[in-house]
């Protein structure tokens, strides 16, 4: 028997066709599984950052000219290779952190739908803990609790700061991926499980062959959003002294010791992040619209 609401509105994935209460519920549940805020970057955000950088540069230029110092753009130009290099390090950290977090998070997420209550409860607690802990706190924990090197069978494996920072950042990623996986698996209609079961698929086969492949489409948008958030969070590593773009900018600024350069330089860093994250956010949004309509 269908519920009354279902008959009136039909079954749909297009939110606009749903009754208002249902629509709100969908949104709430999406935001719950997302865990992190949804990036809504717009092109004009970038334009504003660029304008601020240029204005600040012009002001600094005027100030510098009065004191007969080299131009702002000259100063910036001198340091761009170093800053970009630092930024690439941020990207590397984000890739690695996302990889580790996704691998661990997928396992954790699958454990959350285990039939064994202790496994389910344990993975739920781990997920909730790391999802709700401040990222910076997790970073500090990893920084100070992990040794600077490991000894494995006579080999000394060094464990530099940036690796520890990457691990620290991959913990919240893991927890959020876990929740994304769980949410996606639970969004697959129960009929898929029943059909697979009635064809004598084992639970593991069902998950691997039938359920998870269908989840990928639903997981991609929140996963990419998480990646963009992680990328921006990599600057947290500057707090623990990793030489990424923020740390380098600080060092450059103190080497230059020209306070008027502060806004253009940090603005430039902001612009780098915007240029990297904006396409990701746009693509995420496009994918999401497409799936909502297609499903």
């Amino acid at each position, binding site marked *: *028997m269908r519920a009354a609401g279902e008959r009136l509105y039909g079954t749909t994935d297009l939110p606009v066709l749903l009754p208002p209460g249902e629509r709100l519920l969908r949104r709430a549940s999406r935001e719950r599984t997302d865990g992190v805020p949804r990036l809504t970057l717009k092109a004009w955000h970038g334009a504003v950052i660029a304008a601020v950088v240029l204005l600040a540069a012009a002001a600094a230029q005027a100030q510098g000219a009065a004191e007969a110092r080299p131009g702002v753009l000259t100063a910036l130009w001198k340091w761009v290779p170093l800053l970009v290099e630092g930024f690439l390090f941020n990207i590397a950290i984000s890739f690695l952190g996302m990889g580790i977090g996704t691998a661990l998070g997928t396992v954790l997420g699958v454990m959350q739908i285990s039939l064994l209550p202790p496994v389910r409860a344990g993975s739920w607690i781990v997920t909730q803990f790391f999802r709700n802990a401040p990222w910076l706190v997790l970073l500090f924990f990893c920084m100070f609790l992990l040794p600077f090197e490991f000894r494995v069978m006579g080999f000394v494996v060094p464990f530099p700061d940036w690796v520890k920072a990457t691990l620290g950042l991959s913990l919240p990623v893991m927890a959020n991926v876990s929740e994304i996986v769980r949410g996606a698996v639970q969004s697959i209609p129960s009929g898929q499980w*029943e059909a697979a079961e009635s*064809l*004598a698929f*084992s639970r593991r*086969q069902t998950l691997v062959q039938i359920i998870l492949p*269908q989840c990928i489409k639903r997981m991609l948008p929140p996963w990419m959003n998480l990646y963009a958030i992680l990328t921006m969070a990599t600057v947290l590593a500057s707090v623990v002294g990793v030489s990424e773009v923020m740390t380098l900018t600080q060092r450059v600024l103190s080497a230059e010791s020209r306070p008027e350069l502060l806004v253009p330089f940090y603005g430039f860093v902001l612009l780098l992040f915007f240029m990297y994250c904006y396409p990701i956010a746009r693509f995420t949004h496009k994918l999401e619209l497409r799936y909502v309509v297609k499903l």
Partner: protein
Amino acid sequence: MSSSSETAATQATWTPDRPIVSIHGVHKRFGDFEVLRGVTFDVMKGDVVCVIGPSGSGKSTLLRCINALVPIDEGSIQVAGQEVHDPKLDKLALRKKVGMVFQQYNLFPHKTALQNVMMAPIQVLKQDKAEVRERALKLMKKVRLNGKEDAYPGELSGGQQQRVAIARSLAMNPDVMLFDEVTAALDPETVKEVLVTIRDLAEEGMTCMLVTHEMGFAREIADMMYFTDNGVIVESGPPKEFFANPRDARTKEFLGQIL
């Protein structure tokens, strides 16, 4: 209920002259609500059995119990000698013998029609891919869908999807096929193509258990009719008698509404 040694004994002694599905005193509760309250009947190999009854009377639940999608609380169900009500039940072995088709088709949307049919024999029965493919192509032909092998479920009509679902179940070479209101979600024109497929199957000697609201069809193909209400079988009989003079008041009322 039955001990495992008894199960092993019945399994060893099953012969084609005994019922392929034997349902005895089955009770099923969801919490406080008793959906099945002592259901008993047998299905012989090659028989077509239709179960009808008002909504919520437990028809779907009964079918689900047969392939252990839901466990039963009391009683016994034996499929080709294998006892379903047994804590040590080998569910996968049971389900290999029982095919099931659902109202909502439940095809795997990320696989083509042919892949849907091939998947279980390859993954579950570990059969040779080339052989399975050949058999799957034949099955697609049998359900009159040759040419649609590479279509995804989303590209097929409801009736076509349902026929793929039937082919998918048949690919496992089951002893019994369960159909749970398989035409209820279809529009009247496409209902026919699915019913024709089921009739062909029945005529080939496949044991079928159908839950259906298509009374005319049931009367045509059924060997036995069962009418359920409130979790019990109220009336049963060969279709001619069953439809011509129903004895129980509830059956009369139900048939009166539908016919």
